[in-house]
């Protein structure tokens, strides 16, 4: 899977667009790419854009959770943007710890939240 089109830099933050349909393995690969970028790039934070994501499989959500944890372990603030109702319900049921995360309706607001955090 090519990740080039999924990663972009906006106002100093790394924006990761998660496609509508992605497998857990592909997401794992994508998160490895994101972590590598964080090693070399100086970014204000990472915004995971879930606006398009419609898949709510447990394995995928757990990978997503792991991805967010790894970003935070690296000391980079993370924000999640554009979550849909179905995805939220699934995440709440999984009881994923979201205490250290910022949530926003859209990417610009998420970037602003990261900067003011």
């Amino acid at each position, binding site marked *: 899977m090519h990740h080039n089109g999924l990663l972009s830099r906006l106002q100093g933050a790394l924006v990761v667009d998660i496609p509508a349909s992605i497998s857990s393995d592909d997401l794992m690969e994508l998160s490895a790419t994101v972590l590598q970028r964080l090693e070399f790039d100086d970014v204000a934070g990472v915004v995971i854009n879930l606006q398009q994501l419609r898949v709510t499989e447990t394995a995928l959500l757990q990978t997503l959770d792991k991805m967010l944890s790894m970003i935070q372990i690296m000391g980079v603030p993370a924000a999640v943007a554009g979550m849909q109702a179905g995805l*939220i319900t699934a995440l709440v049921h999984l009881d994923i710890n979201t205490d250290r995360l910022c949530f926003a309706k859209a990417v610009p607001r998420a970037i602003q939240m990261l900067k003011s955090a």
Partner: protein
Amino acid sequence: MSQSKQEAQDAHNAQMQIIADLFNKDTDIILKLWMKQQAAAGSLRSDLISEEEMRQMSFDTLAGINIAVSAGNMDDIEAEAFDAVKTNLKKVSERYAMLDFSPSETATFIFSLKEAVMDALQQQYENDTDALFSGLMLTNKLVDSLGLYTFECFAEAQKALLAEQMSTMSAMSTPVMQIWKDILMIPIVGTVDSARSQEIMDAMLEGLERTDSEIILLDIQGVASIDSAVANHLLKITKAVTMMGCHCIVSGVTSHVAQAMANLGLELGGVNSAPTLRKGLRMALASLKEINAQNVDV
């Protein structure tokens, strides 16, 4: 076919003919007797349904039976000949269920036909005991089968009505209202268990998505009691709203509720709360002003 079998078949056909003739020629008499039986059994509920409508339903049922019996079938109500009468009985059952007739009143509708047909048979075959007996036996069997079918339809109709009422009640118990531009409100009344909390969460998320609002006020003034389970449900709901990038304010956290929660060692950690809906709305408006200012910066 052996001779004895042939004789039995001939006898059965003769009995069928008696009933077919009766339904065909004496429909008016049977209808009159049937209405009388229904009145005597107390199932003509004029407070729920007009006599005219009852008469029409009874007439349609008789017409349906007439079709089946004329086709030479009185044994198997699954046969195509019974489609008309079954359709009509289904309609009657649904109407009775909707009008809140009791199960026994519904059963009486069809079972009282038995006595009406018996009376008609007696009038016609007073001196022919064989014909009378055969007619009674066939009528008994037929009406019993139709009675069971009617009752099944009635039970199904009641079940469907109940499901519909439950869905209406559920929608009414979680009404999401837009009280201001970008501000929604959901008043919670009664008990909050895990099924209800799921409904509330779904309604809130759906409302926020649909209206693209920023803030939702969750008014818990009407919640019967707050214990650790209810507090956890509320926390989950507010967490879900936050995940959508929106703000949740829990209003109606009265002194009584605060005391109860403190005594139980419960906290609404990180959740914006207000003692009254008025204060909650004021808080929401202040937050909205802040959000709008930040959005201008973005």
